[in-house]
């Protein structure tokens, strides 16, 4: 791009200060070719600016909302199928041993400890479960999951010192997806979770299994 074009485009982008703009205008006034180029480019800009908004049609919003429902239903069906679908399991001694270890880890993870947590359901089968995260840089850590309808501000972790945060929540037996939220904006998957589950929208939730002892 030569210098003549450059100054016109600088003008169109609104870059020059008042002094430079005055110099450019002086140059344009003295150069009919440059003035014609500017006229044409201004015409292009006007045409673009006047091209206006277009409407996708009156049914667009309804269509998006309907597809949203479809997508969520498909996601729910996939999860239900994963959880409750019938499947044939092939096993050997090694697989059985691994399964037994997982059960043992789960039981240890949900072993009752300490005072009641932030959520105390009437269900007498609820266990106190401690969620803990190491986040030394965080000013605030919250917990969002299926047990609090994914509302982070409902369950705040308390600093334990040394960069650790924790909170205790009463949970009935079941499977719960959850994530931590740092400083109200950054969603973090629990790196130490026993299980993870794709949420169908490109993210991975941590999953906690709470079982009856």
């Amino acid at each position: 791009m030569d210098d003549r074009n450059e100054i016109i485009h600088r003008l169109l982008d609104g870059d020059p200060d008042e002094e430079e703009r005055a110099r450019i205008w002086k140059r344009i006034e003295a150069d009919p070719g440059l003035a014609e180029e500017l006229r044409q480019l201004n015409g292009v800009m006007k045409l673009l600016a006047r091209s206006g908004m277009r409407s996708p049609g009156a049914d667009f919003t309804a269509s998006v909302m309907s597809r949203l429902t479809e997508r969520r239903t498909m996601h729910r069906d996939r999860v239900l199928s994963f959880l409750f679908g019938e499947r044939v399991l092939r096993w050997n001694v090694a697989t059985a041993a691994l399964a037994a270890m997982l059960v043992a880890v789960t039981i240890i993870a949900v072993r009752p400890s300490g005072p009641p947590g932030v959520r105390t359901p009437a269900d007498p089968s609820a266990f106190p479960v401690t969620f803990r995260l190491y986040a030394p840089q965080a000013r605030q850590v919250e917990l969002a999951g299926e047990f609090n309808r994914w509302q982070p501000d409902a369950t705040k972790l308390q600093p334990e010192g040394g960069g650790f945060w924790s909170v205790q929540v009463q949970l009935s037996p079941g499977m719960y997806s959850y994530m931590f939220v740092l400083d109200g904006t950054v969603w973090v998957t629990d790196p130490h979770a026993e299980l993870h589950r794709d949420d169908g929208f490109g993210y991975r939730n941590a999953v906690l299994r709470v079982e009856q002892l």
Partner: protein
Amino acid sequence: MGTEEISDDEIIERCLGGDRDQYAVLVGRYQDMAYTVAYRMLGDEGRARDAAQEAFLSAYCGLKRFRRRSKFSTWLISIVINACRDQLRKRRGTIALTDVQDSLRSGAADPEERLREKERADMLQQALLRLPPEYREVIVLKHIQGLGYHEIAAMCGEREGTLKVRAHRARELLRWALREGGWNHG
């Protein structure tokens, strides 16, 4: 409080709180903008509608990751642009320069002037489609949506200087394409 008075942030909070129906308010608010960007990028009404719908669905799924560093509308445009890039990748080399059925809303009452305006709009769309996609993006975002270079830079992950060079070249190419199409730049 009517939905017109509710801020985007408030609606997003409600959606995140489980009130999914509130999202329809956001869709209604920005559907023309999303569709216009997609149409200018793709030049095909059906594909533009698909891209805009995909963008709204992706935006909904990503609401909890929306950082609020930008306006919702700016964030949505970046998702629309990505959806358009996907569409363009899928049909690389097969961009139709015809089949542009522009139904531009015209304020002109005179049928002849309306016709002239439609011709100009068709010519503009065809000229836009002749630009390389990365040039078209800058032109659509800068001169049709009126975004600043700093916003586009954040959206596209490019340097402002690079975007300005693309805009300069794109304007020159548009001028050339429109002149070739018989427009007198008036």
